[in-house]
């Protein structure tokens, strides 16, 4: 496939997450408006950081605690991007700085959409999946700031189902080998256990340790899948 068709395929696959991103953006905009953030700061935050978990974290913790603690907690929530950046690097091309620029397209749903199943990623597909989600996140934030809808309405529409459902369908597609299934199970168990004692950001980061199943001796993924 050409770069253009890969980009389009990524955008098509990300239609569901983009719709959910819009809804989440609306709730972020509404919450920022009620916290007295004005218009410019939430819009700039959504446009430049484009990170729902970190943005919600900062918004809620800044109201109750110190700015330093609020920033630290929002940053830790996204620490998984360190691991994802390393995983993506083998599929990037160009200089270090150009690779660093391309890596800015990393977000959870796009990372999954772009994965080709053997630790390689389709970068055009990654960009294609991120573009509509960025636009929807920004438009959602603006809509939330202007309309400030009741958060209960979004819940009644079942909007919270979209991301876990999308991730479930992708993981069903990803888990084609015993090794991948074992690693996914380990990640889920680690995250589930840590949720009881720590914040979701730490639980997610620690959950990536499930990938260490890959250091165990055994057949490589393609061999195992072919078997």
């Amino acid at each position, binding site marked *: 496939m050409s770069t253009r068709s890969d980009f389009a395929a990524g955008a098509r696959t990300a239609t569901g997450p983009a719709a959910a991103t819009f809804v989440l953006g609306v709730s972020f905009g509404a919450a920022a408006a009620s916290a007295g953030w004005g218009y410019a700061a939430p819009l700039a935050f959504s446009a430049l950081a484009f990170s729902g978990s970190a943005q919600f974290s900062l918004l809620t913790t*800044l109201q109750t605690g110190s700015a330093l603690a609020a*920033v630290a907690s929002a940053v830790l929530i996204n620490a998984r991007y360190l691991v994802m950046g390393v995983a993506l690097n083998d599929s990037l091309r160009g200089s270090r700085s150009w690779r660093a620029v391309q890596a800015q397209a990393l977000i959870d749903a796009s990372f999954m959409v772009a994965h080709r199943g053997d630790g390689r990623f389709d970068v055009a597909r990654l960009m294609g999946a991120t573009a509509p989600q960025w636009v929807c996140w920004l438009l959602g934030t603006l809509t939330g700031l202007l309309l400030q809808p009741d958060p209960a309405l979004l819940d009644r529409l*079942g909007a919270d189902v979209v991301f876990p459902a999308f991730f479930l*369908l992708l993981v069903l597609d990803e888990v084609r080998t015993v090794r991948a299934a074992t690693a996914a199970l380990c990640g889920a168990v680690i995250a589930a256990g840590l949720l009881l004692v720590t914040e979701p950001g730490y639980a997610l980061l620690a*959950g990536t340790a499930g990938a260490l199943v890959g250091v165990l001796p055994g057949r490589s993924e393609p061999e195992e899948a072919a078997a």
Partner: protein
Amino acid sequence: MTRVWLSVLAVTLANWLLKASGPAVLGDRTLPPVARSVVGLVAPVLLSALIVVELAGPDWQGLDVREIVGVGVAGAAWALRAPLLVAVLLGALATAGLRAV
């Protein structure tokens, strides 16, 4: 308001650095085979952890059976060959229906 702006800029900058660090440090060096086996599993591992975190929420306080049913409906629809977007939409409709009851 200065406090908000400084916090927003700090988180934004940190977010850029987190995403850029791996590629900027590694450049065109490829990972050894063992590390490649590990990073090849990051996607499924992160997906399953995200599902748990999304459904359970902090301290497992966000658990909602109607949401789990919706995710299950999406999975079943996908298993029955429904397109991805349709399956997700059916899941959301199932949860919305249960919440309307």
